[in-house]
């Protein structure tokens, strides 16, 4: 679910870059406070590769495309590292495949990175008491939040002449098309964390 180039007015795209840079700067500052910031690099790069590969499986659904988002998984597994990981993944998709966009890189980062951080916060708050529920909520919630931010950006970015009823109907269809993804990503995060807990607990978030 990316905003393509050309859809967002240039002012909105520039604002997206400013917001994305601020979020990236904040996350890098928090990462720098870690005892060994480089220690999590292999995990971050591996999950960025997963994100990069999964998001490249795109089915056009105007005005955008449908594919796994993995914001919840990235957030739960990487914490603050999810922000640079998402921006790097989006940049690679844009320049290597023309998927997403170079001008909308900031906006697309803002669609996925805050939900990833919210998913991480959810996991940290609930993960010890009810890990499966927390993982499911983090995965599904990540998609729901990303959908909401995406819809907001689309509403701002579309030309004013677009019929309001048609706009609402199109967004409704778009959200409905993503509902299976809400359930799917909730299950995905829950199962991945359960398998990691049984087979390789050292890979669990916070381990």
């Amino acid at each position, binding site marked *: 679910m990316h905003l393509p180039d050309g859809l967002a007015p240039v002012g909105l795209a520039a604002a997206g870059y400013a917001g994305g840079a601020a979020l990236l700067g904040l996350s890098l500052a928090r990462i720098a406070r870690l005892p060994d*910031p480089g220690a999590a690099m292999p995990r971050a790069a591996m999950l960025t590769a997963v994100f990069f590969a999964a998001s490249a499986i795109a089915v056009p659904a105007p005005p955008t495309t449908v594919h796994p988002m993995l914001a919840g998984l990235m957030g739960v597994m990487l914490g603050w590292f999810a922000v640079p990981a998402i921006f790097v993944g989006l940049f690679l998709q844009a320049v290597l495949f023309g998927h997403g966009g170079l001008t909308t890189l900031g906006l697309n980062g803002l669609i996925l990175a805050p939900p990833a951080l919210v998913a991480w916060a959810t996991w940290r708050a609930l993960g010890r008491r009810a890990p499966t529920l927390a993982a499911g909520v983090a995965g599904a919630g990540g998609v729901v939040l990303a959908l909401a931010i995406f819809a907001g950006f689309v509403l701002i970015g579309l030309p004013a002449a677009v019929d309001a009823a048609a706009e609402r109907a199109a967004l409704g269809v778009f959200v409905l098309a993503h509902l299976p993804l809400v359930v799917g990503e909730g299950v995905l995060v829950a199962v991945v964390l359960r398998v990691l807990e049984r087979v390789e607990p050292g890979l669990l978030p916070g381990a």
Partner: protein
Amino acid sequence: MTSALLPEDPRARLAMALVLAFGFAAVERAQTVPMLLTTAALIAIAAGTPTRTLRKLRGPLVLAAAFLVVMPLVAGPTTLWRAGPLRLRAEGLEAGLLLAGRLLAIVTVTLALLSTLPPHRLAAALRGLGAPALVADLMLLTLRYATEFREEMLRARLARRLRGGRRGWRDVGGHAATLAAALIRGQRRAEAVWTAMRLRGHASTLVAPTSALRPRDVGGVACAVGLALAAVALDRLA
């Protein structure tokens, strides 16, 4: 791939792509779209990769076609043509042409200038333009692990199928277990690679190009700035 007409330095190429992309995104009238598309096509030809770029444009072309079909049906009050409940509207047609044109021009320029660069040069370009070291490192490692992760996924998927796992997207749990298995194996290898890199003294400052831009690179960026400004001026003044 090298081009005799475009800058060699990856920093110059990235700067050119960003300047042209934002310049094209600033265009607000459909009448300017032919100029954008012509410029983008000339850059793809200058890069020496028009066929490769065209192949990668399949997804954006579908999206552009959707803009062209949908927008005239939902935007604007001026009816150009009517067939039953369907109305073709002038404002929607213009908006569709604008969105589709901007999309195709920006993606063409991005792919022509950047998709041909080797990954380490792309990371070097980002680092050279001031991106944080962690981001450049993450990009290099991601590209390195992407191939390994793909192989681990294929192995895990084959193992799952041999155990009688179901195909198709409905078996989300099965796919998640496959992903977890690939992550575990891939992670072990990734840790080993990263440790070896650090022991060999890897530092992302080594990645950043230190040489000054050559006249040809500066000329390329200046040309991109000129083209972007010309597109915006033509759009506003016409």
